[in-house]
């Protein structure tokens, strides 16, 4: 399964210019699948970075803006798009000038696979 999905995600990665990484993890940041280009973006894939997104989502909902499902973080060299697909978290890392709209549009193309991957996490 992994090979097929990896191939599919790799295709998506090539579609969006400037996208470096697509990663699917559980809510604690344990990776299930990851495809990446030759780029050093380890900061966004550290085990401590992704769980922070879950907590930040929970805490940010108390600010009065309601529950959100996507957080986009822009840095000087990178952008990180994290999507809440509980029990999974979908993380995209791209260049700072990568088209964020194209990254967001990938959500629907990955959704079909996520249903299968969710089962692997919920059984745990």
């Amino acid at each position, binding site marked *: *399964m992994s090979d097929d999905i990896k191939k*599919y995600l790799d295709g998506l990665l090539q579609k969006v210019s400037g996208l470096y990484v697509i990663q699917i993890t559980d809510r*604690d*940041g*344990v990776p299930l699948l990851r495809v990446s280009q030759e780029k050093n973006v380890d900061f966004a894939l550290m085990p401590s970075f992704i*769980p922070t997104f879950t907590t930040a989502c929970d*805490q940010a909902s108390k600010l009065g803006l309601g529950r959100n499902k996507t957080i986009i973080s822009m840095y000087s060299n990178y952008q990180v798009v994290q999507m809440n697909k509980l029990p999974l978290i979908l993380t995209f890392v791209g260049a700072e000038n990568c088209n964020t709209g194209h990254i967001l549009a990938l959500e629907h193309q990955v959704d079909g*696979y996520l249903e299968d991957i969710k089962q692997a996490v919920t059984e745990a």
Partner: protein
Amino acid sequence: MDYVHSVWSYLASICNCWQCTEDPGAQPNEPNERTHLLVDPVNHSPALRRSNSDGLSTDYAHSLPKKDDQNALSRLVQNTAINMINVGAMDCHSLEHQEYADRIRLYSQRLHQQWNNGQHASIAPKGLLKDVPSHQFYLSKPIYPDDTAQIKLFTEKAHISVSAIQIDHKEAVVVPFRIP
């Protein structure tokens, strides 16, 4: 005579004023602008009563059973904890390295197992025409003369075949209805 009359009227007006001030005293039950809205507000103020802890416990012991009091308190604490924005809690999520590795192995096993069971959804591309984000990349590529010649050949053939299409109608195109 006029002087005496004016003095008399002055005295009469003073007497009327005294009567005015004495009226509320005569009818104490009737509310006026000096009546207190809250009866003895100082002694009944909740802030003051709260300071007296003995009084609080004895007062509420009669109104609420002990268990309900505890439940209400724990519910209040829970609600406060839920509604509080706790930035410090973000550092709490750290898995042990061993557990991290174990979970990676477990997930990969499950994914393999699931795929072998054939419960996967096959995702075919939903359309041929998709948005191409890096169009500069494709537009800057050179076009080979062979490709151009082939495309021209196909276009000519398509044009010839389209122009050769003829309609051979065998029945009348307009069908007359049998309207009397």
